[in-house]
């Protein structure tokens, strides 16, 4: 395998983008990535998207988006692993470049979620769970993560205040991110007293419904300096693992097995350990998800993740800054784009371009993107050359 580097990134402000269609938002971000890299062509493209069919009634995204990007007839493939689709698209791009099949590959992600009502969005997102044995019985995604939270609270004494602190921390970071959908600060009280969605999670424990896209360009590391003026960011590890789709089938409901597995594989691939990681972007679709993810990735002992945000250890400037971008919570969660946006944040941090949310001296960063309740997980480790 050839070493692979990220040489270009592109994303626009996320939010409720009423005037823009799925193809509009993808093309904008993809062009931004092409411009940032300074390349004059791309050889191949992967697009992460969870459910354009349900959200906007459009499948066959590879062809559509390559066409509208003006890049036809390059090969273009849509990748789907529920909410981990973006991370998986990036992994495909890394493999394609690493294998020598292509040199300049675009990995993008997109989700246009507001063209369908709230009920439709709930339905579309729920398709990431077991349709016949979870969703049939009334479960929603907030409900599933709420059940993880109750199990974590019961086993380890994690509190609602500790979960709220995750949201407060991520909003504090997101307030410094010009692309964030909700760049405002929160207080623990406000989180706790907002409307209950699925006990014990309030609406401010949940990531929002977002329209957004993101794209990155990867190429062989040894070609990077000829192709771009940007500092190349090397892909040190690219891993993927699965767990049962149904939460109830897991040995421990408060433990993310696929995250732990993908994390272990990533550390082994990179020859690193958790203490070598300078910052991490993790999949905080709900506050409890960040708590479980940082435990599974080895940043905190099992059961000890609850206090992470409250203690300041995961803040920018803390022991292991988590979600400096604002995370899914503040930045937004256009499902298929999230994994790519995580790569963008780490790339910017490692380039030293993260402005007010810069993690000082960051050399190695991790991204963790998961689908469903953790049935799929993609982990990447990136390093500054």
């Amino acid at each position, binding site marked *: 395998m050839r070493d692979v580097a990220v040489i270009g990134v592109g994303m626009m402000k996320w939010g409720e983008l009423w005037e823009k269609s799925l193809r509009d938002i993808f093309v904008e971000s993809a062009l931004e990535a092409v411009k940032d890299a300074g390349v004059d062509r791309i050889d191949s493209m992967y697009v992460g998207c969870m459910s354009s069919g349900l959200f906007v009634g459009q499948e066959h995204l590879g062809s559509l988006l390559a066409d509208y990007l003006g890049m036809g007839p390059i090969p273009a493939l849509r990748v789907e692993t529920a909410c981990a689709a973006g991370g998986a698209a990036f992994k495909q791009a890394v493999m394609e470049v690493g294998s020598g099949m292509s040199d300049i590959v675009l990995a993008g992600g997109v989700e246009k979620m507001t063209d369908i009502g709230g009920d439709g969005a709930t339905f579309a997102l729920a398709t990431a769970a077991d349709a016949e044995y979870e969703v*049939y*019985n*009334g479960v929603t995604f907030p409900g599933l993560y709420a*059940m993880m939270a109750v199990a974590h609270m019961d086993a380890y004494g994690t509190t609602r205040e500790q979960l709220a602190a995750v949201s407060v921390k991520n909003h504090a970071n997101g307030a410094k991110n010009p692309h964030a959908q909700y760049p405002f600060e929160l207080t623990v009280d406000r989180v706790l007293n907002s409307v*209950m*969605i*699925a006990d014990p999670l309030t609406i401010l424990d949940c990531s929002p419904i977002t329209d957004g896209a993101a794209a990155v360009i990867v190429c062989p590391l040894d070609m990077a300096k000829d192709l771009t003026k940007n500092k190349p960011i090397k892909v040190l590890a690219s891993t993927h693992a699965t767990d049962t789709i149904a*939460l*109830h*089938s897991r040995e421990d409901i408060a433990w993310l097995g696929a995250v732990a597995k993908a994390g272990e594989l990533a550390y082994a691939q990179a020859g690193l350990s958790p203490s070598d990681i300078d910052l991490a972007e993790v999949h905080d679709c709900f506050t409890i998800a960040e708590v479980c993810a940082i435990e599974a990735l080895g940043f905190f002992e099992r059961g000890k993740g609850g206090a992470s945000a409250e203690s300041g250890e995961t803040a920018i400037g803390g022991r292991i800054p988590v979600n400096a971008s604002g995370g899914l919570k503040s930045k937004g969660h256009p499902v298929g784009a999230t994994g790519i946006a995580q790569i963008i944040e780490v790339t910017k941090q490692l380039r030293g371009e993260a402005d007010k949310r810069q993690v000082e001296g960051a050399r190695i960063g991790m991204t963790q993107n998961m689908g469903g309740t953790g049935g799929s997980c993609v982990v990447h480790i990136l390093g500054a050359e």
Partner: protein
Amino acid sequence: MSTSARYWREIPQRYRYEGAKCKSCGKISFPPRVVCKSCGGREFEKVELAKQGKLLTHTVIRVGPSQFADQTPYAVGVAELDDGVRMTAMIADVDFEELKVGMPVKLEFRKVRDEGEAGIICYGYKFVPVR
């Protein structure tokens, strides 16, 4: 959406709580599988699940999908039945304040969801507290 065929296919599990017990390791799969998750076995016998168990976790869903509009807010939980099988179901006839990990529940036959006023009525199991 539950079309007739899709609903009908799951009747043994949803109405009679049937699982598949692996002939080599004894693990019960619910719903039945072709390959045993614990030992890879391929031969199973049909068994009826234990009708009682304990809640492993729970929540109250305050914002429910339209198929559940009439029942919202409603409690949902994961329980481990006495035979070790784990399943997700709504928790009926419960006062939300009494929900607790470890709470004993039993399976009861209920209407689970509605496919609109003119669609099929979908039945299945729910948990109810053992009092």
